[in-house]
């Protein structure tokens, strides 16, 4: 993941210096500025944003899909847990058309109050937007960002984070998520305060229930069947296969380097060496003692389960035998048994 971040910030900073928007300077922070927080993102946020985008495309036609991000901040870690949509502003003078460049502040406040009732520990940590430019922050986004700042700054002291989803590149980008996160800082440019954006590396926050839900939905299309044990093992198997494919990639790289087809990159080789040195991960007597004890506990439960099943079978056998005996006694009333 560190490789991702360095390339992202490198290309972003490079493109900042030759800005594409006509005439106005770029909104990116100068090269070399490091972000000051780390971000953790929940998949629920991504799914909600994608749902919003699909609905907007179907029902409204315009692509102004934006909303607020809710989360928690503890020290240097920002965790983005949830989100809700924001509405463009309908001015009373012109109620038919929405002024899509302005955010409706009243709607924002009401929704925020409602979410606060249900999730009291969450605050607004940023906002999201859907657009397809990979690296830069456009003028529209900067203008919207300023509005968000005004709405949010009275609430919490930290500068909001911008999350951008790239819907069209979702199909084409091979591995990474089509999401970019930017942190904003307030700086003095030519004497006036301006928001500059720094690309922010993020990680996925994992939460058991969420992971299982995501897993279930992504595999549900293939049809369900088989026993519970088979399903659980199938999940493990696909995870192991993912690990295997990653290892295969690393192995092919090593083979290419040793055959001379690729120039060796020492940083990667050092990382690989460190990985290999970490195996075996856990060892030693203490670990194995407690591991085997846990295995024994589970197998004891399994044994008890089998005993109960056997008892049940015997119980049913006795019941059926008694029934047969009863019937036979009735059919031969003279007393033959």
């Amino acid at each position, binding site marked *: 993941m560190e490789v991702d971040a360095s390339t992202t910030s490198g290309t972003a900073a490079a493109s900042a210096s030759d800005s594409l928007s006509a005439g106005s300077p770029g909104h990116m922070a100068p090269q070399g500025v490091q972000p000051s927080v780390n971000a953790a993102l929940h*998949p629920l946020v991504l799914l909600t944003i994608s749902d919003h985008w*699909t609905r907007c495309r*179907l029902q409204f036609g315009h692509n102004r899909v934006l909303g607020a991000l809710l989360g928690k901040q503890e020290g240097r870690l920002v965790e983005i847990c949830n989100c809700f949509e924001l509405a463009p502003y309908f001015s009373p003078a012109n109620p038919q058309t929405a002024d899509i460049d302005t955010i409706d502040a009243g709607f924002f406040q009401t929704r925020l109050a409602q979410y606060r009732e249900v999730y009291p520990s969450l605050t607004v940590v940023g906002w999201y937007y859907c657009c397809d430019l990979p690296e830069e922050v456009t003028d529209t986004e900067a203008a919207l960002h300023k509005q968000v700042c005004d709405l949010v700054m009275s609430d919490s002291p930290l500068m909001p984070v911008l999350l951008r989803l790239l819907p069209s590149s979702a199909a084409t980008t091979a591995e990474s*998520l089509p999401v970019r996160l930017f942190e904003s800082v307030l700086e003095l440019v030519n004497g006036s305060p301006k928001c500059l954006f720094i690309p922010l590396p993020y990680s996925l926050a994992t939460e058991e229930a969420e992971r299982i839900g995501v897993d279930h939905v992504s595999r549900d299309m293939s049809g369900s069947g088989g026993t*519970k044990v088979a399903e659980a093992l199938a999940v493990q198997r696909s995870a192991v296969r993912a690990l295997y494919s990653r290892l295969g990639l690393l192995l092919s790289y090593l083979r290419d380097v040793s055959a001379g087809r690729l120039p060796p990159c020492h940083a990667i080789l050092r990382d690989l060496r460190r990985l290999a040195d970490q195996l075996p*991960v856990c060892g030693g007597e203490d670990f194995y003692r407690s591991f085997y004890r846990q295995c024994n506990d589970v197998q004891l439960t399994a044994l008890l389960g089998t005993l109960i099943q056997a008892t049940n079978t015997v119980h049913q056998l006795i019941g059926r035998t008694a029934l047969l005996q009863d019937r036979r006694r009735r059919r031969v009333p003279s007393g033959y048994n």
Partner: protein
Amino acid sequence: MADSEAALKRFLLSNEVKELAPSDEIFRVNAEEHRKLVQGAPWSRDPTYFKYARISATALIKMLMHAKSGAKHEIMGIIRGRILPNTMVVTDSFALPVEGTETRVNAQAQANEYMCTYHEDSRRVGRQDNVIGWYHSHPGYGCWLSGIDVTTQTTHQQYEDPYLAVVVDHVRTISAGRVELGAFRTYPQGYKPADEPPSQYQPIPLNKIEDFGVHCRQYYALEVSYFRSSLDSHLLNRLWSRYWVSTLSSNTLFSQSDYLLSQSRDLADKLEQAEAGMGRQSALMDALDSDDRVAKLARDTGRLVTEELSALSGLLIKDLLFNRPGAKP
């Protein structure tokens, strides 16, 4: 991984990146058809009209996360969607700031203002679906409707049909590794179902078994399936390419230890009860009844053992992969 790559290739080949994929059609609201269906109200003539429930990926994850945030408390919320012939489609859910439906019938009355404001505001951001049901969580004791739930749902179905009750159990979800969710509709008063629908068996803790048994014939379960949009599918594939790490690294035996322990204790209580029941005269005849205590105990035990063994298999796989380099399995 292979099937997700194949699906992606198929998608790229058919080049539907700019167009709406067929799987997105379900998001399109067809007002005319919907109005005709609502006016016809075929569910008033046939109590089992709705047989299927389709839930969107977003709604599912939202419900799970809300349930998780409530931890041991029962939480409740509203679900929105629309109806199609024989199907109820759930597209969204939102949380209500009330706790616990097990003691109050109309907890929703408290949240009415919240619900109305939320719902009206949502129209402005493109959520045009109506309220179509409610959901609540049963942390740790399975997806079924209790007496209070049945009463609440019957009232809703009388006045606000079409209405759906969804129950989610996040504790069992994590423990079993699969989503535990049930969608139910109640029968109207006095209706006797024509035949016994086969029900998904699930173990119920001892203190709730009375409540379950009395009411289990008053409602039926809809067949649940999940759907997602094309963008969702891509995001989910990408997510999986990062998530497999946490799948491998999760340790259910450790994180769910108190739930598994409480299940074992519950089984011990049931065993004692079954033993006490053995002394009765009719005990032998009971053996043939499939609702017999011992048979149920056997099934419950089977389920717990399966869950524990699956968790253990995860640990064994990890040990084999990471602790024994060079070993041939």
